[in-house]
C-alpha cells in the first residue's frame, strides 16, 4: 500500500481541509495484570505531512511493541482522504487504573491532540468482567486455555497443566513471552513433539484448530491455595480483511489489492490457575519418612561380591519410579563401622516424555572396608507417600554381603609389623549416664553428721582416753621415790634461799641452821630416803646403788665437813664461809636434780 502513497500525492491535489484529527483507541478497556492491549492512534485527514505522533504519557502501562504503521486512502467524491494508524502493544503493570495520556502529532505546523483514555486493570486471578475479543471468549480468533489435570492435590503430587492454543485463522508459530510464574511449585516441563499436532475442536459453534503448546508438571512444595500466574504468548495473526464497505469505489481496501499477506502482532494470555494443595497426612508416616512423594522402587547393589581390605567398592542405590525425581532425598544407609563411606555421587535420569514425570535417581557410594570378614550392609528402606493410593509405603532393598579378605596393601610394611590406621572413636551421640543399679548405703535424709549423737561419741572417745591417761599418770607422779626426791630437792632449795636471806640480815647462826637442814634434804633427795643414822660406808654403798656420780658424793661430804667445822669452831662462822657453803649446796642441788632426771629417764 505504501507504493501508492507518492503516486497518489502526485495525482491528487488534495485541498487542505480542517477535518484533520487524531484519535486514540484501545482494543479493550478492561485488562488483567500482565495482559496486553493494543493502542491505535489514528490520524485522519489529508494525505501527507503528518509526523509520527509522539507516544503519549502512560501510567501503569508499559510498551511492549510498536509502532506498527498502516495507512489507507479513501477517495470519496473526488476528495482524497487518508488514514494513518499507529498501533502499540501495551501491557498492564499492576491492578488499578491505567491512563493513556494525549498523543500529539504535528501536522503542517499545527499540533493535533488525541483524546486521553483510562483503562481498568484487574488482578491476574480476577474473573474477566466481559469476555472481549482477545480473551478466551468464544468469539475470538485465537485464545489460550489452560487445563489442570486436577485442582486438588497433596504436597509433592504431580499436577499437569496443559496449555492449548485455539485459533480460527492463520497464525505464525507462537513464542512464549512470559512463562507462568508458579510460586510454591517445583516445575518440570513435559517434552512435546517438535511439530505441534493440530486437532480440530468446536467451541461455541466455531471451529478451531487446537495445538498443545505447553505441558508442565507442577510439584507443590507447600500446602494451601497456590496460584499459577497466566502465561503470555506472542504470535502474529493474519490481518483480517476489513469489512467491505458498501462504497463500490473503495477498491483499494479489497483484499484483491493487497500485495501480500499482512500479519499483525497479537499477544495472548491464558488465565491464572488456582490449585488447592493439602498437606501430607500426619498419620501412618513411617519413622524414616523424609518427604518423598510418588511411587518408587529401590535397588542396591555392590560392584563385586568380595574384595580386600582398603580397596574401594562401589555401592549403588537406585531409586526408580514416578514422582519428583530431582528433589528425592538421599536414603539412609547404615554402613558397618568398619567400613568407611564417602559422600555419594548422585545422578538423575528424568523421563519427561510421558504425562507423569518419572525416572530414576542413582546414588553411588564409594565404600572402603577397613577390617576383614563378612561385612553386612543391612537392607536400605525408603519411605514415600503414594498419592495415587493415598497411603505411605516403604520400598526395601535386600541385604548385601561383602566378603572382605585381609589385604596386603600399604598397611603391611616390609618389617612385617601390621600398622592399622588409627582413628578416633567418634561420638555418635551424647546422653546422660545411665541410672545406678545399686542404691548404695541409705542415710537419714535430713541432717549433717554432727547432728548425730554417734558423731560426738566417736569424737569424744579419744579425748576421754587422753584425759584418763593423764589422770592416771598424774596420780603416779604424786607418789613414789621420784616424787620424794623432787619434794626434797624443793625443800632444800627453799632452805638454801632462807639461809641466804638470814646471812644478808647478819644472822650467821640461822644461816648455818638452814644450811644443815638443806644438807639433810639433799641426802634425802639423793638416796630417796632420809639419811639419818647411816655411816659413811653405808652412804657410799647407797650412793653406788642409786647410780649417782661419786664426785658429787665427795662434794657433799666436803660441804658437810665444812658445816661441822664452822659450827664447832666459833671463830670460823663468818659471812664469807657461809656464802661458800650455800654456794656449794646450790650447785650440788642443781647437779642432783640433773642426775636424778637422767636416772629417771634411764629407768
Amino acid at each position: 500500500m505504501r507504493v501508492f502513497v507518492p503516486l497518489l500525492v502526485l495525482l491528487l491535489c488534495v485541498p487542505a481541509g480542517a477535518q484533520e484529527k487524531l484519535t486514540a483507541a484501545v482494543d479493550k478497556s478492561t485488562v488483567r495484570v500482565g495482559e496486553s492491549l493494543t493502542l491505535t492512534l489514528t490520524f485522519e485527514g489529508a494525505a501527507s505531512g503528518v509526523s509520527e505522533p509522539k507516544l503519549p504519557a502512560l501510567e501503569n502501562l508499559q510498551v511492549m511493541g510498536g509502532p506498527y504503521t498502516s495507512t489507507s486512502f479513501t477517495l470519496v467524491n473526488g476528495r482524497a482522504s487518508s488514514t494513518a494508524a499507529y498501533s502499540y502493544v501495551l501491557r498492564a503493570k499492576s491492578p488499578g487504573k491505567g491512563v493513556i495520556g494525549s498523543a500529539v502529532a504535528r501536522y503542517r505546523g499545527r499540533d493535533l491532540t488525541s483524546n486521553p483514555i483510562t483503562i481498568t486493570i484487574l488482578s491476574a486471578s480476577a474473573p474477566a468482567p466481559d469476555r472481549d475479543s482477545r480473551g478466551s471468549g468464544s468469539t475470538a480468533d485465537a485464545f489460550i486455555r489452560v487445563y489442570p489435570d486436577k485442582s486438588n492435590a497433596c504436597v509433592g503430587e504431580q499436577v499437569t497443566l496443559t496449555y492449548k492454543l485455539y485459533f480460527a485463522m492463520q497464525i505464525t508459530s507462537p513464542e512464549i513471552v512470559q512463562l507462568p510464574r508458579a510460586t510454591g511449585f517445583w516445575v518440570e516441563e513435559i517434552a512435546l513433539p517438535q511439530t505441534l499436532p493440530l486437532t480440530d475442536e468446536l467451541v461455541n459453534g466455531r471451529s478451531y484448530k487446537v495445538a498443545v503448546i505447553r505441558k508442565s508438571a507442577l510439584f507443590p512444595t507447600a500446602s494451601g491455595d497456590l496460584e499459577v500466574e497466566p502465561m503470555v504468548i506472542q504470535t502474529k495473526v493474519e490481518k483480517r480483511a476489513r469489512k467491505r464497505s458498501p462504497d463500490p469505489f473503495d477498491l483499494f481496501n479489497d483484499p484483491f489489492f493487497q500485495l501480500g499477506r499482512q500479519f499483525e502482532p497479537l499477544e495472548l494470555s491464558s488465565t491464572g490457575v488456582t490449585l488447592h494443595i493439602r498437606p501430607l497426612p500426619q498419620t501412618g508416616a513411617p519413622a524414616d519418612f523424609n518427604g518423598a512423594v510418588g511411587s518408587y522402587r529401590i535397588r542396591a547393589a555392590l560392584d563385586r561380591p568380595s574384595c580386600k581390605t582398603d580397596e574401594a567398592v562401589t555401592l549403588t542405590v537406585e531409586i526408580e519410579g514416578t514422582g519428583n525425581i530431582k528433589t528425592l532425598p538421599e536414603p539412609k544407609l547404615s554402613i558397618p563401622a568398619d567400613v568407611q563411606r564417602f559422600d555419594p555421587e548422585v545422578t538423575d535420569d528424568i523421563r519427561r516424555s510421558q504425562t507423569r514425570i518419572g525416572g530414576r535417581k542413582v546414588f553411588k557410594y564409594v565404600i572402603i572396608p577397613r577390617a576383614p570378614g563378612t561385612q553386612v550392609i543391612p537392607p536400605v528402606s525408603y519411605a514415600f507417600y503414594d498419592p495415587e493410593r493415598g497411603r505411605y509405603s516403604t520400598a526395601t532393598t535386600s541385604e548385601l554381603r561383602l566378603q572382605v579378605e585381609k589385604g596386603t596393601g600399604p598397611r603391611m610394611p616390609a618389617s612385617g609389623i601390621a600398622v592399622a590406621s588409627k582413628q578416633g572413636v567418634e561420638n555418635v551421640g551424647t546422653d546422660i549416664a545411665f541410672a545406678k543399679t545399686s542404691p548404695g548405703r541409705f542415710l537419714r535424709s535430713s541432717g549433717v553428721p554432727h547432728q548425730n549423737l554417734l558423731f560426738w561419741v566417736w569424737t569424744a572417745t579419744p579425748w576421754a582416753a587422753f584425759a584418763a591417761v593423764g589422770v592416771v599418770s598424774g596420780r603416779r607422779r604424786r607418789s613414789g621415790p621420784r616424787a620424794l626426791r623432787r619434794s626434797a630437792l624443793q625443800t632444800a632449795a627453799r632452805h638454801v634461799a632462807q639461809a641466804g636471806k638470814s646471812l644478808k640480815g647478819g644472822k650467821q647462826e640461822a644461816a648455818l641452821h638452814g644450811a644443815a637442814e638443806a644438807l639433810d634434804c639433799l641426802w634425802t633427795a639423793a638416796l630417796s630416803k632420809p639419811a639419818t643414822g647411816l655411816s659413811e660406808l653405808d652412804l657410799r654403798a647407797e650412793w653406788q646403788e642409786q647410780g649417782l656420780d661419786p664426785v658429787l658424793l665427795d662434794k657433799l661430804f666436803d660441804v658437810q665437813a665444812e658445816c661441822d667445822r664452822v659450827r664447832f669452831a666459833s671463830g670460823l662462822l663468818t659471812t664469807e664461809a657461809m656464802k661458800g657453803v650455800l654456794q656449794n649446796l646450790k650447785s650440788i642441788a642443781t647437779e642432783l636434780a640433773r642426775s636424778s632426771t637422767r636416772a629417771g629417764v634411764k629407768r
Partner: protein
Amino acid sequence: MKRPLFFLLVSLLLVTQVCADPRSSFEEGLRLYRANDMAGAITHWERVLRQGAVSGPLLFNLGNAYYRSGQIGRSILCYERARKLMPRDRDVYTNLDLARLAVVDRIEKPVRLVIWDWVDSVRDSLSLHELAMLFQLMGFLALGGFLGWRFAPVAWRQTFRAVLVILLVAYALCGAWYGWRTALDTQNYALITAVKTDVCSAPDASSKQLFSLHEGTKVRYGESLSGWVSIELADGRKGWVPVSAVEKI
C-alpha cells in the same frame, strides 16, 4: 471384740505395705525407669526420700528420671544433692554438665584464680560423712600417738612425740575442713524450678520487674516474707521471687 483387732491387723499390714523398704522401692523405680516409665520411677524414688532415707545413687537416678521427663530444674537439683553424697562419682558430673546445657540463663561468674578451683576440688573431694569419719579416725590415731609417746620404750619416745604432733595438726585440720564444708553445705543455695519466673524488686507481684530467670539457674536465697523469697545471683544481682518458683538444694 474381734473386729477392732482385725482392723488393726489390716491397717498395720497396709502401713507396712506403704512404708516399703527403701531398697525394694529403689529396685521397683529402677525397673520402671528401664521400662521408660519416668513418672512411675519418680513416684517410687520420691517416696523413699519422703520416708527419710537418702542415698547418692537414689538422688542420681531421680535426677536422670527428671531429666528424661524434661524437668531440667528438678534434675539439676537432684544431681546437686547427689554430688554432695558421692563427690567422686564422675557420672554425676557428666549428667550435671549435660543438664546444665539445657539451662537458659547464662550468668557471668566473677573471674577468679585457677588455684581456687583446685582448692574447691580438693575441698569437695570428700562427702561430709566421709569427712566426719576421717576426723574421728584422726582423733583415734592421735590418741595412739599419745599412748606411744607416754608408754613406749625410751628409744621410741622421740619418734612418737613427732608423730603425735603431726597427728594432732592433722586432727585439727580435719576438724577445720569439716567445719568449712558444713558451713558451705548449709549455705542457702536454691535452684529455680519454675520454667520461667520474673524477679521483682520487692516481695509484691505489682512491684517493678527487674529480670527473668529460667529453670535450672542456681541462686542464693536470703530472707523470706509472705510467700516471697529474696535471691541473689552469682554476679551479684538481687531480687524477690515467689517461694514456689525455687527449691533449696
